[in-house]
């Protein structure tokens, strides 16, 4: 099958509050499309020319703009943002917080079949149009709304609090050690964010002490054992990447003074959907060594397709919507055996300076989580690391990286491996 190359992309500054700026989603899309086109030296005229041959398409990842922005039909929205997109095939893809990944998946498939030479994948979410309680209710649509979210204030912290409980019940680590490991994840991701010029939390304060200081005025309980420091924030943001066929990428390389062998490409992928309701997940996993077996399966599928193992991975970008989800990912990635995640965390294995760094970007906790954008932002960060364009948060010599993007309470699980 065709190799799919990543040519470049961009993201917005995730610390921005677009509602406070008085701007709507048109402004966000215009900005991300403008910046994206600049990043790959494409003009509006180039798009028109490619579209004449029907060789370009656009894919939009977004969770629930219907609620936040009163707008649907988001693929078509690109025609309102830039007339160069008149006639360009486009559509919106959705899988809750993995919307970005399923948009990438469709785009990759279309390059593989040779239908398109180059595709633009945009992920975005504008979440600060409403207050936090309503926002929490909207996010509940990513769960089984009737059973798990309706009438529940902030349902997702509670669901991932349940994941922390499940981990404790299944593996029985010493509770203090487990909670300290979760705090270490939060502290790491805040620290990594300090080096990421687009990270939402780059100016925020966090320390190991504060992350361990749960259920206090400045670190309130949010759900189960989790507190505020264990959570990702509500974020406004967009990310874009351009993917291309080998022929287009070779031409791009020539035009831009690059070597094709240095351009990152998609080496593997995995996509599995677990039972939606959390209680069913727990029942389904009772005989598995993994607390999230379908997450682990998606990762296993990706390694198989790529012909690689955890040993080949130089870094990971994972879905730390809550510290408990990054915790579970440590064994799902194969860094440790299930139940031993705290050992790798304590030993600093997943730190920037460790040999399996997780979330050099700061992750969702540090960089931010504009729901529909996250999968695309992760792909962008994989590209940046492998292309040595991650600047102040570069992992030296990064050759292969893996992303895990999940939707709901680890319901949709999407994995990509990117390398060169």
């Amino acid at each position, binding site marked *: 099958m065709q190799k799919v190359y990543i040519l470049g992309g961009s993201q917005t500054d995730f610390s921005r509050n677009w509602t406070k700026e*008085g*701007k*709507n989603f048109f402004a*966000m899309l*215009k*900005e991300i499309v403008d910046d994206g086109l600049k990043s790959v030296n494409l003009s509006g005229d180039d798009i028109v020319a490619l579209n004449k041959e029907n060789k370009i398409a656009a894919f939009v990842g977004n969770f629930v703009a219907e609620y936040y922005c009163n707008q649907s039909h988001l693929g078509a929205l690109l025609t309102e943002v830039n007339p160069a997109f008149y006639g360009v095939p486009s559509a919106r893809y959705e899988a809750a917080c993995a919307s970005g990944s399923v948009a990438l998946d469709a785009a990759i498939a279309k390059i593989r079949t040779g239908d398109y030479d180059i595709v633009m994948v945009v992920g975005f979410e504008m979440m600060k149009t409403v207050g936090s309680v309503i926002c929490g209710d909207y996010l509940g649509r990513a769960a089984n709304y009737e059973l798990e979210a309706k009438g529940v204030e902030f349902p997702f912290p509670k669901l991932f609090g349940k994941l922390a409980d499940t981990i404790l019940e299944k593996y029985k680590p010493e509770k203090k050690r487990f909670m300290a490991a979760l705090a270490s994840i939060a502290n790491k991701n805040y620290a990594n964010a300090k080096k990421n010029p687009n990270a939402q939390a780059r100016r925020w*304060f966090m320390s190991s002490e504060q992350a361990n*200081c749960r259920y206090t005025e400045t670190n309130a309980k949010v759900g189960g054992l989790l507190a505020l420091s264990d959570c990702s924030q509500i974020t406004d943001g967009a990310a874009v990447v351009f993917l291309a066929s080998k022929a287009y990428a070779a031409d791009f390389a020539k035009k831009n003074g690059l070597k094709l062998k240095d351009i990152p490409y998609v080496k593997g992928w995995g996509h599995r959907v677990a039972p939606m309701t959390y209680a069913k997940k727990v029942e389904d996993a009772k005989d598995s060594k993994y607390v999230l077996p379908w997450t682990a399966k998606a990762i296993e599928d990706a390694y198989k397709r790529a012909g690689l193992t955890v040993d080949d991975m130089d870094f990971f970008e994972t879905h730390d919507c809550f510290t408990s989800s990054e915790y579970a990912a440590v064994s799902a990635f194969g860094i440790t055996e299930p139940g031993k995640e705290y050992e790798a965390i304590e030993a600093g294995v997943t730190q920037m300076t460790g040999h399996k760094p997780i979330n050099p970007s700061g992750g969702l906790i540090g960089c931010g989580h504009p729901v529909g954008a996250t999968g695309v932002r992760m792909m962008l960060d994989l590209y940046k690391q492998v292309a040595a364009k991650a600047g102040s948060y570069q992992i030296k010599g990064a050759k292969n990286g893996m992303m895990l993007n999940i939707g709901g309470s680890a319901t949709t699980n999407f994995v990509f491996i990117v390398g060169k």
Partner: protein
Amino acid sequence: MLGIKTVSVIGANGTMGSTVSGLVAAFGDAKVFMICRRTEAAASAADVAANSVKAGAIRSRLIPATYDSLEDCVSRSDWTFETVAEDTSIKADIYKRIDKCLKAGSIISTGTSGFSINKLSENFSQKVKSSFFGTHFFNPPYNLTLCEMIRSEATDKKIFDAMKVYLKEVLYRDVIETTDTPAFLGNRIGFHFLNKALQYAVRYKKEGGIDYMDAILGPFTGRGMTPLATIDFVGLDVHKAIVDNVLANSCDYDHDAFILPEFVSGLIGQGKLGLKTKEGLFKTVTNDDKTNQYLVYDIASAGVRPVRKYNLPFASQMVAHLAVGNYDMAAQSLKEAKSKEALLCKHFLVSYITYSIVTAQAVAESVTDADIAMTTGFNWIGPVALLGALGGYEEVLAMAKEVDFDKNLVDRLESIDDKNKKAIRAPIDFRKSFRAKL
């Protein structure tokens, strides 16, 4: 990296004292002696400090203290930060005490926004002078990350540069270095704009004065808060202190722009200092039904009236363009607008750009330092970014010719040297600075 593990903050119960203490205890991972006149004030300042960085965990690093233990605290500190009242004799007394007990190799800095660092330096012995300089933070430091650093002639450059690195890399400050001139850079540019807005409010008092000028210079011109509302927020007395200082101690091409309008002195005399006294240029009254009434001081009638909504088509047009991200069209629509209010707006924006470039040339290391100062100290669009947003140097010069009311813009812009003409071509992303709001 400087090993700053113990810090004394003198005047720690003030706004800057408590928030800088929080910053240092948190990001600096340091023990901070918070020195105030009374223990209770010091204790509650420590709570304010912890809350200012949203981290209760740092509370144990904050040690309330009184002036009785000043020598004990300072002699154990790697850095002493003075942030007491802006009063030369109070500072002189404290400096004399610090001079006797500052440990070798440690730093003493002042957060003064008003006094000459060279003059304050005279209070120290020769040895301590070399470790003394200005570190001017902005309020609140958790959000406004600007820190202006100012050397005296006696300051040791090595120590100064080491502190610059500490402020940047440990306390996450955006640091610019300025000469020892009144209001340094940020306040010099910011209060030039603000005081001019006050002066024009008087000039246009018949049209509405204060709220009229705020409507013309709204968030759509690249600021988080309108200018006259900003003065109320800062405090009329603080504003007066700053502009009086600049007026008395400097003389640039727009010196008269720092003359405080008389009516402001009048309000100050009546104790109407702005937000902190719940009345100043503006006043909010809560009705019985819990709704708010927004009132403004009407200069023409010397009384108070409800804030008006001014119908300014040029502003509404700009907002409409900005809301959908059409920054070019917003700039174009401003360029083409010819109403009295549009011309006033253009005058202020060109004046801001001009004054910033001229002042930065004189007091800072580079013209783009003005952008750092205004974005990270005031949450305003930077002047170089604004110049780019309006189409570049030639466009702004053309605009200046249209609105050079005081005959000092075109000349100044034309006399920018080649080095700085190049520097102002730096493409700075201005998009997040324009708010699509009236």
